[in-house]
């Protein structure tokens, strides 16, 4: 396993009597893309701010790249980039001037900054808009400018808070491609989002936040297995049979749902397509479709939170 980049232990934050984060443990390895998921108010942003040292934790400790963000904030912030939720820039300044300002704050020399800013603009395809005031930028362009800032600063860890919120599908895809590119460049990325397909398409592991705790931390397959359902989902379309009753006979089937007449959604711990096909045919039905897909994060997510709510 590669080196540990970020380690949080027992991280908690209380505002008076209200508990925002109630003890979080998180270990992130180099080069990973971690998705932070959970309902609004589950403590994601507060956790991010504590990881960066922008908010002091009530309890617990954080080490990023072996440093304490509260004691060595400058060194941590030099290596860790942060793209806040709906990031703002100085509207009257151009995109290039905005980045030049942060480059100066990071203590970069003028020549190095000019070179890196040009390269970053190139990478996020904003070169043409670089010398226009940010006031004229669309939301997607602003987010891309935020990514350009991370690129320019050459951070080792990037924390993105809701980078895709409010973007149209095309801008979302462009932003995802950029984030993937950052990841391929060796950057460790923490990403919070409500768009589950986004998270599924780029994250290696996910952390599910619930009421200030991490309820689950692992891969999507692990999540599907953990909540007691299979990680295989098979869509079946057939006529003349009642699969509801039949499917139970196949080994490994965990549940059967009926989204519409003549259609079933079978979940299983393994690929049960041959058995299902045999069952349908033996019962005298006509099979129209048999489709296997991996567990979808949105299904697992919804089920997880339904279970949590039931348990409470």
């Amino acid at each position, binding site marked *: 396993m590669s080196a540990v980049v970020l380690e949080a232990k027992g991280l908690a934050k209380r505002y008076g009597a209200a508990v925002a984060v109630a003890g979080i443990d998180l270990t992130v390895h180099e080069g990973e893309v971690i998705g932070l998921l959970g309902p609004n108010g589950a403590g994601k942003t507060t956790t991010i*701010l504590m990881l960066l040292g*922008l908010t002091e934790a009530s309890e617990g400790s954080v080490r990023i790249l072996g440093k304490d963000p509260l004691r*060595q*904030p*400058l060194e941590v912030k*030099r290596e860790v980039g942060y793209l*806040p939720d709906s990031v*703002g820039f100085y509207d009257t300044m151009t995109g290039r001037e905005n980045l030049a300002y*942060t480059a100066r704050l990071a203590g970069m020399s003028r020549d190095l900054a000019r070179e890196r800013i040009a390269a970053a603009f190139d990478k996020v395809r904003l070169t043409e808009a670089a010398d226009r005031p940010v006031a004229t930028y669309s939301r997607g362009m602003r987010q891309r400018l935020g990514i350009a*800032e991370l690129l320019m600063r050459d951070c080792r860890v990037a924390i993105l808070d809701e980078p895709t919120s409010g973007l149209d599908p095309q801008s979302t895809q462009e932003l995802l491609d950029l984030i993937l590119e950052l990841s391929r460049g060796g950057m460790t990325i923490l990403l919070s989002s409500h768009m589950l397909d986004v998270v599924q398409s780029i994250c290696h592991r996910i952390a599910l936040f619930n009421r200030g705790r991490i309820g689950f931390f692992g891969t999507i397959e692990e999540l599907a297995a953990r909540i007691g359902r299979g990680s295989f989902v098979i869509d079946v379309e057939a006529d003349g049979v009642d699969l509801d009753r039949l499917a139970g006979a196949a080994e490994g089937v965990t549940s059967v749902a009926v989204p519409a007449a003549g259609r079933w959604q079978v979940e299983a711990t393994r690929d049960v397509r041959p058995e299902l096909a045999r069952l349908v045919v033996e019962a005298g039905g006509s099979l129209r479709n048999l489709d296997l897909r991996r567990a979808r994060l949105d299904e697992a997510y919804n089920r997880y939170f339904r279970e949590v709510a039931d348990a409470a």
Partner: protein
Amino acid sequence: MRREGSPFRGVGTVALKEAADHMVSARMHLIMLLVLLTAIGAVYGAIDRIRATTAEDAYLFLKLFTVAREPLPSFAAFLGFLLPLVAIALGFDAINGEYNRRTMSRLLAQPIYRDAVLFGKFLGGLLVIAIALLTLWLLMVGLGMLFLGLPPSAADIVRSVSWLAATLAYAGVWLALAIAFSTLIRSPATSALAALSVWLVLTVFWGMIAPLAAGIVAPLDPFDPMSILNRFEWQQAIARVSPQTLYGEVTGLLLDPAARSVGPLFMHQMQGAVIGAPLPTMESLLIVWPQISGLVAAMLVLFTLAYVVFQRQEVRA
């Protein structure tokens, strides 16, 4: 807990950026235009008056700043009135504006301390005011030489430059006040109004409040002449809460070499003094030293208030 790294990293960068922002902002252009026009009007009036009374006037050069022709006030009085407005215009949205543009969290995620943000903003505003003041001062001196054909003496220069420094401290008080309000209050419009109300109370109404309050604290006793003095001293002490009073006293002493005291003066203290003889520059400066320290102290107190509040503020808006 000890934190590593200098809190002043990035102060210069923030200050220069703020100064550059102010220099090109429409807000600053408008208010400087106002100041410039009134300044030129005041100097023009002063030059007219001085021309008429040249023969009987000593310290002509310094009179440029203090002489007024009705209905215009003098240049120094104008600055005392308008400078707070300039400072408030520069500072009222320093911190809350950053939150409203949603740039605060990004700014604080840069490798700098919060100290640098606040300190840089204050220095940037002060720098702009200093540049504006110096320009105005040079303009005055130039106009004086042009119209009166009168070069300033070395003592005049020392006096007017120290007056300029005191003026900067006075502007600093209002800038610190505006920044403190911008930290305490989330909405820029509210913080601007709050700063303007303080300004209005301290510059316009304080002159009426001070005698009233003094009358309550130290009532006049017709059989005790000392009660008059007592009351006057109370009135002065209360009036000095307003930075404008302090600044007025500094101006009176520094720009008028013949002035001897800011408080009551008794006959026995004047024994042996040549009435109207100028005081050495250092002596004038010594007399108003408490006033100047008072201005600097007020500036520091207000800045510290803003600092403490800002350090404890949550990053998320």
